């Protein structure tokens, strides 16, 4: 992923936006770096019976209890095949005073993306994705879908989720 165009990054450093890039399925997503607390390997996941399906479980991250949210389920993608890739990676976020971890297929580099490449999300983007993507950036070789972190975490937990 040689996504940083040196010409651009040299000139537009100041107004560029930084994203932590992650992959879920085939897609590259960006999470605004100011919302990312850390990136960690998920170990010792405690499943929560009766929880909404998006919640994979609770993780002890250096003494904090983090709620692990499955990005695949959140995006309506099929579950990852068993044993595909050893470690499970998650991006740590905070909302209110709670810690969440978004479980993704892979975590890439931190990208600084020039503001000019920003595009509104296509109107025909599928239902769930439309509500989770805030906008899109055109990279040289692929598209970066920027996640709206609060929307990602706004799934129904309080009601009787089925």
């Amino acid at each position, binding site marked *: 992923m040689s996504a940083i165009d040196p010409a651009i990054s040299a000139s537009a450093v100041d107004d560029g936006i930084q994203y932590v890039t992650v992959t879920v399925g085939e897609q590259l997503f960006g999470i605004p770096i100011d919302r990312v607390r850390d990136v960690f390997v998920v170990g010792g996941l405690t499943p929560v019976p009766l929880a909404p399906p998006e919640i994979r479980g609770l*993780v002890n991250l250096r*003494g904090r209890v983090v709620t692990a949210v499955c990005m695949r389920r959140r995006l309506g993608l099929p579950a990852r095949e068993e044993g595909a890739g050893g470690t499970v990676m998650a991006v740590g976020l905070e909302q209110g005073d709670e810690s969440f971890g978004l479980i993704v297929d892979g975590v890439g580099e931190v990208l600084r993306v020039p503001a000019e490449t920003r595009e509104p999300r296509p109107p025909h983007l599928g239902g769930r994705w439309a509500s989770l993507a805030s906008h899109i950036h055109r990279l040289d070789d692929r598209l970066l879908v920027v996640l709206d972190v609060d929307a990602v975490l706004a799934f129904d937990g309080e009601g009787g989720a089925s």
Partner: protein
Amino acid sequence: MDELLREFLTETSEYLDTVDMELVRFERNPNDSAILRNIFRLVHTIKGTCGFLGLPRLEALAHAAETLMGRFRDGEQAVTSRDVTLILATIDRIKHIITELERTSVEPPGRDDDLILPLERSSGGPGRRGIDPAILVAFDEPDVQPPGEGSSAPSQQGAVAAESADAAGGRQQTIRVAVNTLEHLMTMVSELVLTRNQLLDIARRHEDNTFNVPLQRLSHVTAELQESVMKTRMQPIGTAWQKMPRLVRDLSAELGKPIDLVMRGADTELDRQVLDIIKDPLTHMVRNAADHGLESPAERRALGKPERGTIRLDAYHEGGTITIEIADDGRGLDLPAIKAKAIARGLAPAAEVERMSEAQAAKFIFHPGFSTAEAVTAVSGRGVGMDVVKTNIELIGGVIDIHSEPGRGTIFTVKIPLTLAIIAALIVSVGDQRFAIPQMAVLELVRVRPGAEQRVETVNGAPVLRLRERLLPVMSLARLLGRAGTKEDDDGFIVVIQVGRQRFGLLVEGVFHTEEIVVKPMSRKLRHLQVFSGNTILGDGAVVLIIDPNGVSRMLGAQGVDAAAFADALADMEETREEEVEATALLVFRAGGPGQKAVQLSLVTRLEEIDATRIEWIGDRPFVQYRGRLMPLVTASERLVIRKEGMQPILVFSDAERAMGLIVDEIVDIVDERLAIDPVPQRPDLVGSAVVRGQATELLNIAHFLPLAHEDWLRRAALPNAPVRTVLLVDDSDFFRGMLAPVLKAAGYRLVLASSVDEALEVLASQRVIDVVVSDIEMPGKTGFDLIESMRIDQRTRHLPVIALSSYISPAIVERARRYSGVEFVAKFDRGGLLAALAATVDGYGAAA
């Protein structure tokens, strides 16, 4: 440097960082009163503390900024960006002074009128002392300072130094450790435990036992280390009280009131987190007690009271909670003034306020911006404080209560539940997952196996266990959690759990050990799962879910296996149903402490005084021969000591066959009182608390005591002699459901709870018989109106009466509610109104049907 000063500096720097951030947020959302209240509180705290430490420059700056922000908060003035800049500049100045303070321990010389005057002008004031700013600038030269100001600071500083020298001798040796360091230490220890466990595992699998001795030593040391680190989280409440004597002394001098401070239970240990949160509220309350609560010495003399006022701080563990009392022997709350102010501030309509009981009216002091002090003093009286106190306490799931008696004083009672503290929990397993069950709720463990003496049997498919001639309903935890257990439903351990008076068994596959756990709250996304009350990190680093016995009991109830418990509850209700509305004859007594307790007079068969030497003991249970029979005696309070000689008063409760004597210390009076009962969480022995004869009084739940004397007293089929109505209570707020449920139960209704409209509709669609629906109107997602509409299209539910609750009643809402027939409207916090509406609706409905 003075310990107090150092602590102030640390705290203040933290505050200031927050204020900066909050102010910037505030400028963007000037209508967000929550942000403003937050800033206001921070500045207020700084100001307050400066006053006591003798830091006049800081105090003056904070005071001026606070005055301006007070005007924003009260909506007297619109927020301009100029004002925000001004306040930010003031905060920068405060920071500058604090940096100097850190370096030299004294305030740097200088004046701040360049900021204070514009601040005061912005507040619409005439500028300090009403002098033209130009003249003041000239006046401002350091060498022409008013003599008072120059000399007062050093003398106060002197006092500080003397105090700290005095105190240093007696103070326990402590060092300040950053919380992060402790947390880190905790994590490291957890990892160490994990590694040790792995090592032990490996050693077990190896023949070679040369490792055993050092391993055992390692194991031992690790355990001790873990325990010690755990202990670092606990602190005696005395650490939060350390500042109090100084505070009270300074207040005493400042207000010209001699004050005695009495502190008891300083060694009561609290979780550090809890302690941090309640520290400020406690300080506020002590400050209020000195400033507002206590009268001036002249006034006290005139009233025939001792000149010296007393402020009392008490802390103790009680029934799974930590209770802190802040009491003064002053004038009590000025209820007429509070009512007048509530009306003037438009907090409630005048007619409603007039009808309020004293206890209800007293609660107005918890409203933001509510203050009855006529003069704004440096000590308090800005109405900041009590609302913040309440918010902070509720933040950690605690409750605060006020009891006040005119001329005798005010008592604030703060109860903090154990959920934040460390609790003992039994670790059990289902499949490969472990769960924690609070030890408090666990009565015993029974090993069950098919064919063994202790085994699970079924009645019509419902599993039960024979336990000492009683049938215990059993629920498999695996099934409860919606997973098929790896073993059969009849092999494993039954954890016998008691919730209130409901007893049931929870079948688990494995039982490990009891461990002290630190309860962490559930994520918002998971809080709707009633089976869990929180989670914790075990010693080996694993996250484990904590089972909520109350939640399980509710789930059991929902599955219809609570027939026995229901009969119990019914008996309970028969006793208490009248209390809520009409004047009730009460027998007031004291037992195990100075506080008043009461029971309904109608329940008491006789009052007796028996010769204490006639009390006989069988094992550890007291009896007395009474009317030719041996009558068991039960103490009305755990803290009561049964007399060895003299006369012992008892209350006799009896029916045709049985009698019980309830031992009390002293019978006080019989009174008729209209009761407003407040539920007291985690106290099954109480119906609740209420104000009787102007004093906080605990109302005993006699149904709790009867089984202590005769285990089967209430088990006999208490046949309902009146049909019991079932109320479906719909509200999204756990807190509100929790608050209202006991009130409705006490009034004799059976309850079904729903936390959302969808859940409510599910209940209505099920086979349960519901007589009336009580629903909140404002709920996230579907509202109460949606519920009513859905109900009205369904043939089965269209005629069900509905009582709609709303905390905010606008004409539009009332109008909308009127459009539906059979919908009553009640203000959300009007319990009396709700009960009256329920009674009317249910009876009318019953008659019509």
